[in-house]
């Protein structure tokens, strides 16, 4: 058999044949080291894959710059006829290495010119304005907490494979009472209290989803999900792609996200930008109770992994929720208030801040359009751009840090795809760029507030 210089690392293109440990006529065993090869990183030992007799050495010890794939030796396998090669004395060390007679590595590392995927120019987005939610049937007042509970209960009634797991979700009725009553109705097989073990139960949930179930994994807060983020991203989000579309992971990771009240930096982070960065995930962050219910139902039904970001401060707020079946499509923004002078884009609790600012500005005759993104991945660009086309001014309101945020993304979209519609720079009004402080006064200073939105709007209108 012909021994060719192998690539000994993902990046190796050539090496030095430092030393031969065998000579023609030697018997070699499978696994025996026959040569030492120096690469840019290390000296590697070259093993014979199979046993046999060394017929010839084709490259002399000490030769530099031997290309990967160059024939370096011939070994006759056991029982193999020894090829009648001229007993080639190894060429002198300074001699040119034999030009690689072997096929060049297939162009797997060099995409063919025509087949190469080119970065796409931004496609024009077909503008689809978001609409104001108008419920045709009867509605009733419900808290966000109750709406989320109803969404889970309804989907669990409809589908035996849906179950809830997390810390204190069953006997304690939920750390924030979102799972209240579920244990009584569905029993401990489907409402599962876990130990405090976020990494473990997130991974276990992913495995259960791959095994055909539809888990709803509650994190007591998304701050604790940082312990589990590897499974959310590496195991849940990427597996369908990495498997060429074979593996499903229909799982919902849900729980409160963002600042609560006076719980300081470790318990007060908004992770929306982190998850929205990841292809393969759906990321949802509703504001009101109707959307919380309708989107959680869609999330549970989705064949894809979903990060569902709730907000503790909103749990107790009441909103009108349609009676009966209410499902909201993923990926569609909602126009919360129509206006003509400026668009306020927001999501989750930021929508409340934007609405408050809009009310104040309306008193002065400035009409704000308030667009609730609701889904952060995939993001409803068409609705953002349609509203921008209408008002020509935009302010993004976000309860979170400003750097590399959802705001940053909205601004990028406006620049890339809505530049001609802009009459002023898009501004962002966010939390201050600091870990959230505990002191009452400092916390207030750090969090996004309506007065800042009002000031930003006045600066551009």
């Amino acid at each position, binding site marked *: 058999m012909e021994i*060719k*210089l*192998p*690539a*000994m*690392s*993902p990046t*190796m293109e050539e090496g030095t044949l430092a030393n031969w440990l065998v000579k023609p006529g030697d018997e070699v065993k499978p696994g025996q*080291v026959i040569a030492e090869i120096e690469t840019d990183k290390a000296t590697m*030992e070259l093993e014979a*894959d*199979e046993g046999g007799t060394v017929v010839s050495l084709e490259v002399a010890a000490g030769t530099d710059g031997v290309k*990967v*794939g160059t024939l370096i030796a011939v070994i006759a396998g056991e029982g193999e006829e020894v090829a009648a090669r001229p007993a080639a004395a190894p060429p002198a060390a300074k001699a040119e290495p034999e030009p690689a007679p072997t*096929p*060049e*590595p*297939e162009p*797997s*590392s060099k995409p063919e010119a025509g*087949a*190469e995927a080119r970065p796409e120019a931004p496609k024009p987005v077909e503008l689809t304005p978001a609409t104001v939610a108008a419920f045709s049937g009867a509605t009733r007042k419900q808290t966000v907490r109750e709406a989320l509970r109803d969404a889970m209960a309804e989907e669990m009634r409809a589908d035996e*494979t849906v179950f809830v797991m997390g810390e204190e979700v069953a006997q304690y009725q939920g750390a924030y009472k979102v799972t209240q009553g579920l244990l009584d109705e569905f029993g401990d097989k489907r409402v599962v209290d876990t*130990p405090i073990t976020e*990494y*473990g*139960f*997130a*991974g*276990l*949930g*992913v*495995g*259960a989803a*791959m*095994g*055909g*179930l539809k888990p709803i994994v509650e994190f007591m807060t998304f701050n604790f999900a940082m312990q589990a983020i*590897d*499974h959310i991203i*590496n*195991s849940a989000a990427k*597996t*369908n*792609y*990495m*498997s*060429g*579309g*074979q*593996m*499903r992971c229909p799982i919902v990771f849900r729980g409160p996200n963002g600042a609560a009240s006076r719980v300081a930096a470790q318990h007060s982070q908004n992770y929306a930008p982190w998850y929205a960065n990841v292809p*393969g995930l*759906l990321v949802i962050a509703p504001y009101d109770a109707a959307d919380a219910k309708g989107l959680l139902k869609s999330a549970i039904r*989705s*064949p*894809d992994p979903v990060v569902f970001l709730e907000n503790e401060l909103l749990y107790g707020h009441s909103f009108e929720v349609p009676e009966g079946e209410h499902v909201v*499509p*993923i*990926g569609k923004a909602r126009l919360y208030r129509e206006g003509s002078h400026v668009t306020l884009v927001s999501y989750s609790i930021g929508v409340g801040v934007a609405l408050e600012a809009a009310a104040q500005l309306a008193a002065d005759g400035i009409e704000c359009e308030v667009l609730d993104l609701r889904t952060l991945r995939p993001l409803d660009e068409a609705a953002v751009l349609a509203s921008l086309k209408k008002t020509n001014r935009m302010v993004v309101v976000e309860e979170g840090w400003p750097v590399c945020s959802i705001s940053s993304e909205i601004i990028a979209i406006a620049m890339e795809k809505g530049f001609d519609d802009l009459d002023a720079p898009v501004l962002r009004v966010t939390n201050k760029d600091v870990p959230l402080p505990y002191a009452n006064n400092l916390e207030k200073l750090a969090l996004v507030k309506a007065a800042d939105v009002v000031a930003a709007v006045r600066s551009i209108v």
Partner: protein
Amino acid sequence: MAKASVASTRRGSAGKGGLEKLPNIGRHSASQEEYRDFYQMMLLIRRFEEKAGQLYGMGLIGGFCHLYIGQEAVVTGLQAAITPGKDSVVTGYRDHGHMLACHIDPKVIMAELTGRAAGISRGKGGSMHMFSVEQGFFGGHGIVGAQVPIGAGLAFAHKYKGDGGVSLAYFGDGAANQGQVYEAFNMAELWKLPVIFVIENNQYAMGTSVNRASAEDQLYRRGESFRIEGLQVDGMDVLAVRDAATVALDWVKSGRGPILLEMKTYRYRGHSMSDPAKYRSREEVQSVRENRDPIEHAKREMLELGFADEAWFKEVEKQVKAQVAEAADFAEQAPEPEAGELYTDVLVGNY
């Protein structure tokens, strides 16, 4: 054909464990046909991996490539005991052997290694990320230890659905030091999940030997504080492994929760293709190859038992080589994925 079989030596001495409740591991009483199948599977894995190493050297396989050479008896003995498609299997990135032992076509595995559209992951996963829902093979995971809670989750699904299936979660001695492994142990025992945790202790976590990394280097004892029974098994003896599988399956199927098997094994090659393996001596590797090789050991025993003669071994070698050569040709000739594949399979639904 022949009625002869290897005498079972259960009740024996080979196994050790925590073990009031567990029988010791002996050696499986293999029929001629079974032993021949084990041999052929081990040989297929070895020749496949050797070929993968060659294709890597030729630049046809990129990135990381972790070969299973030396460890063949572990997956062969365990997979022979379970029901493909009904039971679930999950492992880390050293996964080629597991896929072959799940009876997945060598062609689509090799084509994945070369990054071709015909690969089992359509060229998007590569060596470390391969799956077959049909055969109950759930990956192929690149993050060390991540497969352990996933394996517990697969067992959770079996128990939830009441389908009688069990889950095998394979991981290495390196992964055995990841915290999530113990989170999974805790829940698996707490909820009595039907999962067999298999530690493939090949003695080195990349370049760090077990006793340089593990305060408790008897890894079969790693479940003790979770009340998980553990057994240490000679992972270089396919019949010992096969017997351990019987014990473990009886255990988990009877509703007693998880069990831990430590397979003492050895990898002949580096951690990956780019590992110069300076952390162990050449003599150590050669000594294992000469004295403990699972394939040679099986061959000697089969000759002694009259289960096969030299002609049979030659014929099997020929068949296996042809199968591997066919896989390699296929993998070299199959086209790369279309550029449009870049954007497929990110999400399943339309939003």
